[in-house]
C-alpha cells in the first residue's frame, strides 16, 4: 500500500530544480507585490494579476509534482526503515530552523512594517518546507532490477 495513489520517479537534480523553481517564483511574486502592490494604477492591475495567477499555477503544479516525486511518501509511515526515519528527522530539523527564522521575519514585517499578510507566507512555508527538504536531501532513486550492480565499491576502488 502506498501513501498516495500517484507517484513519479524523478532524479535528485530534477527534484532540486523543482524546489528552486517553487521558491524562486514565490520570491519573485513577493518582490513584485512589495514594490508595486499598494500603488498600482488601473493599467497595471491586469498584467500583475495575470503574472500572479501564472506564478501561483507554477507553484501549485510544482508542489504537486514535488510531493508525488518524494520517495519517502511512497512508503506507508509504519513501514519506514532506519534510513527513512533518519531522513525525515533531518528534513524536519532543517525546515524548523528555516521556519523559525521566517516566523521572526514575519513578525518584523507584520508588527513593524504593518504587513499582516506575511503570516500567510509563513503558513505556506510551514506546509511546504519539510517536503522541499526531503526532496532536496533524497539521493537519486535506485531501481529494483534483479542482478544489476550499480556503484560496485570493489570495482571502483
Amino acid at each position, binding site marked *: 500500500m502506498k501513501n498516495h495513489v500517484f507517484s513519479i520517479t524523478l532524479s535528485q537534480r530534477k527534484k532540486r530544480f523543482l524546489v528552486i523553481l517553487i521558491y524562486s517564483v514565490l520570491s519573485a511574486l513577493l518582490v513584485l507585490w512589495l514594490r508595486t502592490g499598494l500603488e498600482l494604477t488601473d493599467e497595471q492591475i491586469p498584467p500583475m494579476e495575470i503574472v500572479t495567477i501564472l506564478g501561483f499555477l507554477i507553484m501549485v503544479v510544482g508542489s504537486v509534482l514535488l510531493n508525488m516525486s518524494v520517495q519517502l511518501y511512497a512508503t506507508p509511515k509504519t513501514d519506514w526503515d*532506519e*534510513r*527513512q526515519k533518519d531522513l525525515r528527522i533531518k528534513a524536519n530539523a532543517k525546515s524548523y530552523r528555516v521556519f523559525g527564522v521566517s516566523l521572526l521575519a514575519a513578525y518584523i514585517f507584520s508588527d513593524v512594517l504593518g504587513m499582516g499578510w506575511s503570516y500567510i507566507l509563513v503558513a505556506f512555508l510551514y506546509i511546504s518546507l519539510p517536503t522541499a527538504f526531503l526532496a532536496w536531501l533524497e*539521493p537519486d*532513486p*535506485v531501481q529494483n532490477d534483479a542482478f544489476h550492480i550499480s556503484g560496485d*565499491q*570493489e570495482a571502483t576502488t
Partner: protein
Amino acid sequence: MPPNKLTIYNRISVLRAERGLSRKELADAVGVNFQTIGYLERGDYNPSLELAFKLSEYFGLPIEIIFSTKPLKPLSQALFELRKERAA
C-alpha cells in the same frame, strides 16, 4: 565545525549478485526498503550497527568482510593474498 562523514565501504552488491538476489529480496530479508539497499551499495548511506549485523548474519560472513573504513579489494584478490600469506 562537524567532522567529515566517515566513508564506509562495503561488498553488498557483490555478495548480492553472487547469491542471485534482487535488491527487494535482500531488503525484505533484512527488513528495510529496497532503496536503502541501493543507497548502501552506492555508498550514499552508512548503515546502523543493527543493520550491519543483520546483513552480516544474512550473508553468513564476518562483519569486517562486508564493511570496511578503507577501500575494499576484490574478494578474489583478497583470497589470493590470504592463500599466499598462509603458504609463506
